[in-house]
């Protein structure tokens, strides 16, 4: 059936039409593209996969490349090409610059081949191990890792699909794959707030809420063990790991909330970072060199984002206070490339997600639909997750900050405090 459906396309594209007509868009009857496409992204066709779970693998590869927002995935609406010798001319006709072929080998590896259509040759081949039971979480993560590698082959930028997002719902910590699959409560934890990933992807720090108050816990997601961080008096909230993985910074205190830092390994007592003099200073986020911290403070009477060296020196107001009725800027998240900080700012009775450039301090507003809070950058520094009520209740959404394409990640309701993981599968050698 597949071949029968494709035959008219083959005939029309490759045989009947003269070259001058073929060059026109109007003849590309099977080209779907994406409505938001700027026209500069390479078209990619993902061929039918052979071997076990072929349809699932093809669907995941296609969706991952689509969600990456760097290529234009061509939907096979006109039918799939015939197996056998690859007709590069045909793929050129439907707008494909690249062709992805995948198959499951008898040894259980995912064998992926990337073709450059215009050069009519294979440009990359790799085999990916497929751990765990088929269709299980680790198996899906392995397909995502293959997608990310293919995106790197095509665009020079690694995809971000081999990632997960932690979030909080009804004071339970949840984990969800970047594509919305495998949403589930992280087992074995108490009432949890503010999850934060360790750069290794193995540990998560969070604020645990008990009857006698809050404290910081580091959870080993692999071993399933927890360790409570030495606490300061009063409340202990909003932990974050440094990008070098060595330091934990959190907010704590009784009469005034300040930032404290503590080594991740060992039990050294926390060292105070900020001198807030009774104000509240929280929601820290590290610069990529692990030497500076951006945070929220109300030391001027309302919430603004500041930056300090992690030793407490060189404090600087980042978000400029302008004349407005209720200035309130909070929840900074520093991009991994160090270039900009995302945060939330009060607007029209709700919040909107903003970014500020560290180079010239220019700000841009990224959201406008509903109230949008608490941004967390993805590892590509292009996509982010945040909390939005635009669907009628708080859910986690994903935003591509270049095309402004957004998608709803969670479906469980009352979701918030999202944190995007680092890449959870190491790139192939």
């Amino acid at each position, binding site marked *: 059936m597949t071949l029968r459906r494709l035959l008219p396309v083959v005939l029309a594209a490759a045989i009947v039409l003269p070259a001058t007509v073929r060059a026109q868009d109007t003849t590309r009857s099977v080209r779907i593209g994406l409505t938001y496409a700027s026209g500069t992204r390479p078209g990619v066709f993902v061929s039918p996969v052979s071997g076990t779970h072929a349809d699932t693998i093809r669907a995941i590869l296609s969706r991952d490349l689509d969600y990456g927002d760097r290529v234009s995935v061509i939907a096979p609406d006109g039918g799939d090409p015939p197996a056998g010798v690859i007709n590069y001319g045909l793929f050129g006709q439907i707008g494909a610059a690249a062709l992805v072929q995948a198959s499951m080998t008898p040894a259980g590896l995912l064998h992926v081949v990337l073709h450059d259509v215009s050069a009519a040759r294979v440009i990359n081949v790799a085999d990916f191990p497929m751990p765990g039971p088929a269709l299980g979480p680790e198996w899906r993560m392995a397909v995502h890792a293959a997608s990310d590698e293919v995106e790197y082959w095509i665009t020079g930028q690694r995809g971000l699909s081999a990632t997960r997002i932690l979030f909080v719902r009804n004071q339970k910590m949840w984990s969800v794959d970047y594509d919305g699959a495998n949403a589930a409560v992280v087992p074995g934890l108490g009432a949890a707030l503010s999850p934060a990933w360790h750069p290794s992807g193995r540990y998560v720090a969070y604020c645990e809420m008990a009857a006698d108050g809050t404290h910081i816990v580091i959870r080993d997601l692999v071993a399933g063990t927890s360790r409570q961080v030495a606490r300061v008096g009063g409340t202990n909230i909003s932990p974050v790991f440094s990008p070098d993985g060595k330091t934990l910074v959190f907010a704590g205190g009784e009469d005034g909330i300040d930032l404290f830092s503590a080594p991740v390994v060992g039990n050294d007592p926390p060292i105070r970072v900020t001198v807030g003099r009774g104000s509240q200073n929280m929601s820290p986020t590290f610069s990529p060199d692990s030497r500076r911290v951006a945070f929220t403070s*109300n030391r001027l009477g309302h919430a603004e984002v500041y930056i300090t060296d992690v030793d407490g020196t060189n404090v600087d107001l980042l978000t400029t206070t302008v004349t407005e009725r209720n200035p309130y800027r*909070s929840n900074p998240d520093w991009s991994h490339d160090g270039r900009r900080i995302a945060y939330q700012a009060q607007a029209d009775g709700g919040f909107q997600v903003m970014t500020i450039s560290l180079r010239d301090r220019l700000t841009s507003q990224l959201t406008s639909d509903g109230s949008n809070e608490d941004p967390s950058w993805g590892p590509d520094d292009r996509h982010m997750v945040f909390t939005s009520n635009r669907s009628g209740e708080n859910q986690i959404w994903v935003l591509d900050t270049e095309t402004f394409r957004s998608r709803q990640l969670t479906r469980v309701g009352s979701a918030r405090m999202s944190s995007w993981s680092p890449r959870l599968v190491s790139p192939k050698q």
Partner: protein
Amino acid sequence: MSASMTQTYRTVSTRAILVASLALGACRAKPTPGPTPQQQAAARAAQDSAAAAAASAKRAVETPAPAPQPTSAPAAPAPAPATRATATSAVAGTGPVTADERRAAEAARTALLERIYFAYDADEISADQRAVLDAKLPILLANPRVRIRITGHTDERGADEYNLALGQRRAAGVKRYFTARGVGEDRIETVSFGRERPLTAGHDEDSWAKNRRGEFEIVAGSETLRAPR
């Protein structure tokens, strides 16, 4: 949220603390009717304080003994073991004895547990709320064995973590008010729940005003509580 519901919550909180008292040996509570769902929820929120009170009593002595079982507390869980030794000495010490004393002690307890409220994004204590604290002060001064926990709460607006910090500053501000007036610092602990435990779920100014609050729990010495002379 109506005023009557607020009253219900207060009543049940008091009842849960009575259960804590039962665990400590003063088992004279009257049977209570079955709780409404709202009461159950309120009692669940209060049960932590009851357990904490029992647990701290347990820590205070070296020879634990089995606790008397409460027979009339459908909304509360079985309390942690406490000791007869502590309870007996407490009752024999400064606790209320006559019916009048007990009534006065209950009034003092109610005053001690009365909430206070805050303005938006503020930890200052307004003049009318100061009066609520001033009513607690003589009770705290007259009951040196009583330890309390102040929990700070915020409304749903603003960032989650900011609100946890704000709730802490509210609780700390109330503590400061008491310690500046002679209450020992070690008798008051402060906790913030930010926006995590709202009293009422509405999304309007009336609900927000009710949720921006400080709450009070007796975590130790409840059985000896008496009215100031």
